């Protein structure tokens, strides 16, 4: 199954790429606070809409 080697290497390459991404995200402190992000995601931006005035809620 020589093609397995290609798949193997490819897969490990991808996984390796994701490992680097993971290390970066930890280093960057992405996971220091696991409460706020979930909250921020649902906050509505205080945007001013051109046509109408208020987009909140």
């Amino acid at each position, binding site marked *: 199954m020589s093609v397995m080697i290609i798949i193997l290497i*490819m897969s490990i390459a991808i996984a*390796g*790429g994701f490992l680097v991404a993971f290390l970066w995200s930890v280093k*960057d402190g992405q996971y220091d606070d696991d409460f706020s992000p979930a909250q*921020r*995601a649902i906050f509505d931006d205080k945007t001013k809409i051109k*046509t*109408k005035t208020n*987009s909140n809620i």
Partner: protein
Amino acid sequence: MQLEKFTYDNRLPKWFAYATIFWGFVGMLIGLLAALQLAFPVFNFSEYFPHLAFGRLRPVHTNAVIFAFVGNGIFTAVYYSMPRLLKTPMWSEKLGRIHFWGWQLIIVAAAVTLLMGFTQAKEYAEIEWPIDIAITIIWVLFGVNMFGTILTRRERHLYVAIWFFIGSWVTVALLHVVNAAVIPVGLFKSYSWYAGVQDALVQWWYGHNAVAFFLTTPYLGLMYYFLPKAANRPIYSYRLSIVHFWSLIFLYIWAGPHHLLYTAVPEWAQSLGTVFSIMLLLPSWGGMLNGLFTLRGAWDKVRVDPILKFFVVGVTCYGMSTFEGPMMSLKNVNAISHYSDWTIAHVHIGALGWNGFMTFGMLYWLIPKLFNTTLFSRKLASTHFWIGTLGIIIYAIPLYFSAFRSYFMMKSFTPEGQLEYQFMDIVNTVLPYYMLRALGGLLYLSGVVLMIYNVYRTTKQDEFVETEEMEAAPLPKVYHAPKNAFWHSVIERKPIVLLTLSLIVVSIGGIVELIPTYLVKSNIPTISSVKPYTPLELQGRDIYIREGCYNCHSQQIRPFRYEVARYGEYSKAGEFVYDHPFQWGSKRTGPDLARIGGKYPDSWHFYHMLDPSSMAEGSIMPPYPFLFEDDLNIATTRSKIHAMRKMGVPYPFNYEDIANDDLKKQAVSIVANLKTADIEIEPSKEIIAVIAYLQRMGRDIKAQN
């Protein structure tokens, strides 16, 4: 330094949303037509346009639903959520536009070419190489835009949804490139680099991961953004969502081979697929529960809000199919499900339930937002929900029945040890189920029609909000420090990362070296009696591919008594070394053809192709009259032989020059053979090549025994 003003662009999300709806409708319509063709062959409209038979329509359906409907759905989610999560507009609006129009163009081109019979005959990767290249370009542009946005973001944290988008993008890009490795032999014709078993492995490594990284992970991103938004409560556990992403990303990539259980693929590769598929259960369910628990204590909301209803059922379907999947990858279960309608039911639970309902939920939430209004009619949306749910049920249940009934009929023997049922008996038994399936599809589609009306009225209620003005501060400098210095600092501080990086570099270098050598090497036949196809057979095979016969006929006999008794000796890996691409198929609506060669006289095939029911009472196979009128294009023979030899198929040197002479000789002999059955036909017709190929299949092994 000041707060920076910027605007969210709502036009692209709107366009993508509309495209999603449009292609969704088209794709499902074609799906419905295909379902009808199986239930009532008249829907092949053979008298009017014989070319548009099931074999060509089904790829259009699958591709339309996956890459047009779900694809645009993904882009809608990305182009709407990303700017808002990262507090910045998409990096380039122009790229966005190119992406949009490029993608739609690709879809149209794909649909047209597939209907014209230009196909690679690998499921969900049928589209031919020029369009594959276009896809690659557009996908890269999309990636550039995405990462550009990430790099210019004003929000430091990358919300988990974005991680899912990134993961999907990277993996899909790589899968697409690896699987689409072909040698072109014409503008719209190519041969896969890999042969037989190897091709099968790559295809299903791709095939499974296409499901994983196109239909699942991006939609998980969608879920993690839109579900909390719609419910207006944060995701149940953010920590869990992070674990969900990383564990999924590290496991998914290996699950492919479970699509090849009991095939000629080496046992260990099959079992490997099983092991990892089962491991997948944990992260998948983690994600599902995370989604459902988000609504914990808000069920009163769910009861009244159709959007949440869609999400709940969508997520539940995700849970169901991610449970069903690993189960189906267990060998003994797979023995039943493989080649059967079970698979179809399984994927449609995912497609209709997970992808479909998540998309509808998103659209019902998004469209009013874009028009700064409320949904035209919640009642209508609710009706859509119920019709849709009913549709899924009526679609799936009958197929499960059909799967089991046909399984037991397939394997039942008379006391004398004879197969109890002919294949045709089985077809007749499952036909009612196919009718019900079509009904389910019809219901689901009519739900979509309701949605289209609802959306239309909603957009008419108020003015479209083209852009939303926003202001935020850029990322503070101190936080840039780690990022700018990232590569440098990490590499010097973390030798392990250096090691990983070098590992990757090495692997990529390795690939470049390995591919040619191994692929050629591995094409050396392991069964001496297996010979390359003759030019005529090769041409016939390409017609077989063109008409998409693999959509209903497998060429892979599993080592079960009931299969061997029905179709003949089970398939060996060595038999397929010249099959570029492999034609194992994944569904047996018709019987397996791996050993069809020599089973019937040429005349049988002649009549059968002209009018299947004349040879097999009650056959639902469409007739192929045009094969008897169109002349075979032998101009391509030379390049085809040439390409084959390039890939290690041992045709003698300069065989190209004489190939067509051999071709004509064989054609004449077949015509002569047909004459004995008082059939008159010129040797130049395509049917001759088809017969040649059909009669060749599985012969080599027989010759050896």
